[in-house]
């Protein structure tokens, strides 16, 4: 995937609306591409600003008064006896077409939380030099698709703990890098056991390679660290 391809996917990637395969492809590209990673970071910045604004607005609302109005409207509906046009009926929300996917996929944060209830899958620090700009979007996508995937450029220090419990129903794709095979040769996602026995902890990784990926197969207590020696320059153009 090059930047031109990625550009068309960035919005969907950021919103978590792509299918699994495209999410993985986009995540890989973004993790390796400075300009696309910056584009995602910009979206995060805008979204953060919006979120802060909305939060401020909500804080300023008198919800008690609004709820009193809602209750009054409901009471009026009940009095009239018309149940056919109750405006607050669920599953008929604006913009939702039955049978179609909701406009917005489950949030990355929620997906990441589901996959990582203890929030200990991925920890990272930077130690000087150029380190990857690890975006929330990429992290969410990877949490959804990979056990752990770390890419960095230049010399970086990464701290990771691959030491956790995986929810019973979680299905996580391992990320088999099979260079020279392209990324679309990722293996199918295995279903992980309820309580994995993986206790491999990678405390830190210092490396000078251009990129480094990591994934794990808890059922066999195996952690894979993949060094991509052929990673091109950090211009992001691939």
């Amino acid at each position: 995937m090059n930047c031109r391809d990625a550009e068309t996917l960035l919005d969907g990637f950021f919103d978590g609306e792509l299918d699994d395969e495209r999410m993985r492809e986009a995540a890989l590209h973004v993790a390796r591409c400075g300009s696309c990673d910056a584009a995602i970071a910009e979206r995060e910045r805008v979204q953060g600003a919006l979120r802060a604004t909305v939060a401020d607005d909500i804080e300023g609302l008198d919800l008690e008064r609004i709820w009193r109005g809602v209750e009054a409207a409901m009471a009026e509906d009940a009095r009239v006896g018309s149940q056919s046009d109750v405006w607050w009926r669920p599953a008929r929300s604006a913009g939702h077409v039955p049978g179609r996917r909701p406009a917005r996929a489950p949030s990355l944060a929620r997906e990441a939380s589901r996959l990582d209830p203890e929030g200990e899958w991925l920890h990272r620090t930077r130690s000087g030099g150029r380190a990857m700009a690890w975006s929330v979007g990429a992290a969410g996508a990877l949490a959804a698709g990979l056990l752990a995937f770390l890419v960095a450029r230049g010399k970086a220090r990464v701290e990771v703990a691959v030491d956790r419990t995986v929810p019973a129903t979680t299905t996580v794709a391992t990320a088999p890098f099979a260079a020279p095979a392209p990324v679309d040769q990722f293996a199918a996602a295995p279903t992980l056991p309820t309580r994995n026995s993986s206790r491999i902890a990678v405390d830190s990784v210092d490396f000078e390679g251009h990129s480094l990926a990591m994934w794990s197969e808890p059922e066999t207590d195996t952690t894979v660290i993949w060094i991509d020696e052929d990673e091109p320059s950090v211009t992001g153009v691939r």
Partner: protein
Amino acid sequence: MHGPHGIAGGSLRLGSAVAALVALAAGAALAGEQVQVQVGTVYATNASEHFDADLEAMRSQLSRLFRYTSYRLVKKESRDVGWGDPVDVELPGGRFLRVMPKSAGGERVSLDVMLRKNQHVLMDTEFTVRPHGTVMVGGPKHEDGVLIIWIGAHRLGGPGVRPQAVR
């Protein structure tokens, strides 16, 4: 007569002394202990469809974790070393792997792992693995494929290790 600071200072010194003794005891316990370090190197490629018979026990795992069509065992070594003693393994392509068991925490063994290519350090890291755990380091290019190196370690006399997959 001791003032509060004197009591606190005494407690601190006592605590430090106990901690030092515990550390010494732990060190003494590890001093004579051996660690078995296993290192295996696989050459993986898509140039053929050969699967090394020596890797048969790892077939399903390799096919799950990677997507190559051919896997050949390059070398496999198992060495018993003391804590802090390095295991050096020459790898194809001028690469060099050093694995050094550093410390133990219960069943876990902490390993310093360094992978170099000539004078260039590709990776310098620390793993903590359980007896049944394996770390695979992959990606170094070799001919028209890549090398995949697996590393495992367990304390001899400690918790047992799962028989290594490679015969």
